[in-house]
């Protein structure tokens, strides 16, 4: 099998997944409002994307043009690189790195940098406030996810994502460490600037880091956010939900079904959960959720020592 096939599949899944996530976003709003779902809902993201593409690009006064233009592209690249370590079937993976989850962690950290640069480079107040606010929350959420991922890697005794998936052949990690899944989903919301963790692009800042975005740049930034959501759902499925393991259906189908489920859960959380004020969220992250991540890590360590 050519090495290009997993790469093509990765971009295909990223594209289709992003469209599915955008359609789910709109469907969720309709469901919550009690309005009937129409087939046109599925096409709505395309229409809105087209609208952005035909609008002109607005420039602020003395922006950092290079970083402003690059930010959406870098965000998209980080989504693709992060997903490249996730196997869709045994051996079917773009980059089967021994340090797979470390690479994912590096992508998380660089995502915070890219979101900050996106808000900073516009040289305008609202994007800047969004960027600063996001860094405070995003960095803490990302720090926490490192312990969550290490706990998921402990039973596998490996940092490779394929080994973590293999270690879940009998028991999925969600059974072994349910809080880990919740904490990781929370990180997913933070990486994609959504719902209760939308401190960067929130409506209270008129769009935050993308308040001054318009035209194709706005479409690109929103598409990159959706692609990162797909990437997060792939990582969640592989690390906590057993990846391609499952009865009756073939492995890749299971993987896609789980990804769609995680996407739906994240979209639901986006619209149903309210956001805490930043100071409260920071206190919650450092005093409650970080110790919880430590506790999970210690319990999984004890389990591995006692039953292996």
């Amino acid at each position, binding site marked *: 099998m050519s090495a290009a096939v997993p790469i093509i599949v990765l971009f295909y899944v990223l594209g289709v997944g992003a469209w599915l996530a955008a359609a789910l976003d709109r469907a969720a709003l309709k469901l919550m409002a009690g309005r009937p779902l129409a087939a046109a809902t599925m096409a709505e993201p395309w229409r809105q994307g087209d609208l952005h593409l035909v609008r002109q690009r607005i420039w602020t006064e003395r922006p950092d043009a290079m970083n402003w233009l690059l930010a959406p592209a870098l965000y998209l690249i980080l989504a693709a690189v992060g997903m490249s370590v996730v196997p869709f079937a045994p051996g079917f993976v773009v980059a089967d790195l021994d340090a797979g989850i470390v690479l994912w962690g*590096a992508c998380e950290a660089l995502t915070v*940098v890219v979101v900050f640069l996106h808000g900073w480079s516009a040289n305008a107040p609202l994007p800047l406030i969004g960027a600063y606010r996001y860094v405070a929350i995003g960095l803490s959420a990302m*720090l926490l996810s490192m312990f969550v991922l290490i706990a998921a890697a402990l039973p596998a005794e490996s940092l490779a994502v394929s080994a973590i998936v293999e270690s879940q052949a009998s028991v999925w990690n969600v059974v072994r460490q349910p809080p880990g899944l919740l904490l990781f989903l929370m990180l997913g919301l933070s990486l994609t600037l959504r719902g209760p963790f939308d401190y960067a692009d929130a409506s209270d800042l008129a769009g935050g880091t993308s308040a001054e975005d318009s035209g194709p740049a706005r479409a690109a930034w929103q598409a990159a956010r959706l692609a990162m959501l797909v990437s997060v759902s792939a990582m969640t499925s592989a690390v906590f939900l057993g990846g391609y393991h499952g009865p009756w259906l073939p492995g890749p189908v299971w993987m896609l079904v789980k990804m769609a489920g995680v996407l739906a859960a994240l979209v639901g959380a986006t619209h149903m959960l309210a956001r805490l004020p930043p100071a409260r969220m920071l206190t919650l992250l450092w005093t409650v959720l970080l110790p919880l991540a430590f506790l999970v890590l210690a319990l999984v360590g004890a389990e591995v020592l006692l039953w292996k």
Partner: protein
Amino acid sequence: MEVKDLAFFVLAASAVWTGWRVFRVDSMVRASFSLMLSFIAVGLIMLLLAAPYIGIATVFMMAVEMMVMALFMVMFMMNPAGLNPMWMVHQHRLAAATGFITFAALTIAVLLSDLPGNPVDPAKPVIHDLGVELLGNSMLIFETAGITLLATMVGTVILSSRSGRYGPADEGSLPPPLTPGGRPAGRVPEDEE
């Protein structure tokens, strides 16, 4: 092999170029992230040297560190966004001379020393071996270095925050009241209300 050699030269050149940009740009945010790019190039060179964990962890650590650094530098300076042009160097003649002399000395040392040519077997579990080393024989050194760094950071913060905005911090500096004889101005922490 040739692709690896080419990758090394490209990465080494970009590490030097972005490192040089740190001192040429006019904004703290740009300087921080230029330094980050320089470290990322070095991290990728570590990948070429068959040290995948250290290489990728360098990228991860530098992204977090430079983000925190940019945030704090802008926070402590009177340049709210870090986008206003500013002069980024102090004592720059001395610093530039020291930098060039150090670079030349290190380059000469590298060129003159007899470096081992010892390719790592691709099947060798380098990450596993590194973990056993760090949490085995080298654990004392590793932990001592970690605690020393932490103590240094805490000490630096304590020393630099002694002179508070309204007088020495250890003598209970408080902002002046808004009305004569009133409560000190400013935010009262939630648990003291």
